[in-house]
């Protein structure tokens, strides 16, 4: 169980076992902001908020030697 499938199953398990998601859903009734939170509580079985990205790269700059002429 690796990669996205694993993430999905773990997330689903969390949704089933945690009181957290119910508390979040209750907050959703109050404010617009909480609607996004409620969506997360209802759709924890996807991990799409995180896009897989490449590593940052450094740059190698050449330095001229003074007085080479």
């Amino acid at each position, binding site marked *: 169980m690796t990669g996205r499938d694993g993430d999905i199953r773990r997330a689903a398990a969390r949704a089933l076992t945690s009181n957290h998601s119910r508390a979040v859903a209750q907050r959703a009734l109050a404010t617009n902001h909480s609607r996004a939170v409620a*969506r997360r509580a209802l759709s924890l079985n996807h991990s799409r*908020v995180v896009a897989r990205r490449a590593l940052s*790269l450094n740059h190698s700059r050449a330095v001229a030697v003074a007085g080479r002429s």
Partner: protein
Amino acid sequence: MANDTDTAAGEALCWRDQALAALDEGNPSRALSIAGQALGTLEAAGLRGGLDEAAVLVAVAEIEEALGRFADAGGTIGAAVGILEDCAAEYADDDSLLLWCQAQERQAGLERMAGDFTGAAARLNVVLDRASASLGEASLAVVSAANALGIVYKYASDLDAATAAYGRAAAALARLADPDPLLEAGLLHNLGGLAHSRGDPGAGIPLAERGVTLRAEALGPGHPDVARDMNALGALYQLAGRHADAERSYRSALAVFEDAYGPDHFETAMTLANLAVLHSDDGDFAQAESLGRRCLKIFTAVLGPDDAEVGLTLLNLAAAVAGRGRTAEAAELAARAAAILTDRVPPGHPHLLAAADALGQYSQPRDSGQPG
């Protein structure tokens, strides 16, 4: 309502993914346009200020960086971090933590570019602590943040600390199940760059060549990330005295960058800057000056007049101008370089020492005032 918002959020994240795909294909302008649709979708659904907007903003910041719009990227990533900090109590899952790590890492990259090495390193160490504790040392978040920390230390010229950070990234990468070859390619690129900073092209060239091979196999030879690899490999060849190989590498990178990003882009200027120094090394000071002035103009426009890259470009330009016999002008350029670098890099940094050395040499009373 929940279904509507869920659909809208899913649609926005689809736009985000398409935007990043366009970025990965080397088309950041199109990527930014698509990302705008993602934000518009969230706005229309009343989903601003939550995790989904933060996810889109992290992508927008990456795209803005790719476009060379660093000030915009700073504002965007600041907004993403603000949302994530505000929502930290509500979002306690691994996805949210990963997104927070990505946002913090991008903000640290911008701090590093601004010369705030201490702040960037501190931020990344917090990321590493949280990522390692919550996701495990053998996690992509640790690989990515440790790699970013290595870059910070490399630019600060704390090369032993950079070696340790890259070593941590490599160790975490080795423990990942089925790692993406592009991760190894990125790390090889950076280890090659570290060897360049140490003045050890013999150690760096095999690493950089292996990185180029891996990335070209995965992305094709005309991809901008392969061009980044080729520019870095060219610098190693140049350091090793393999000037023909260096010029071939630089020109290969330049063709890709000019095609993908245009003639006035940051990456184009980075390649022109190295090509200019190669011409100086070959004694072609006229061409070195011409290329040096071109990339100076780009860096000044993209990064601002007081950026460290501008300082180093002025220093290299001074060598070309001195090579043409205009020593007093070279001294002025070296003095400007030293002033900028003093504010932008730590004391004892090699570029700062080189600027002081150049200023001393060009300030000697031997100016003929005649072009060479």
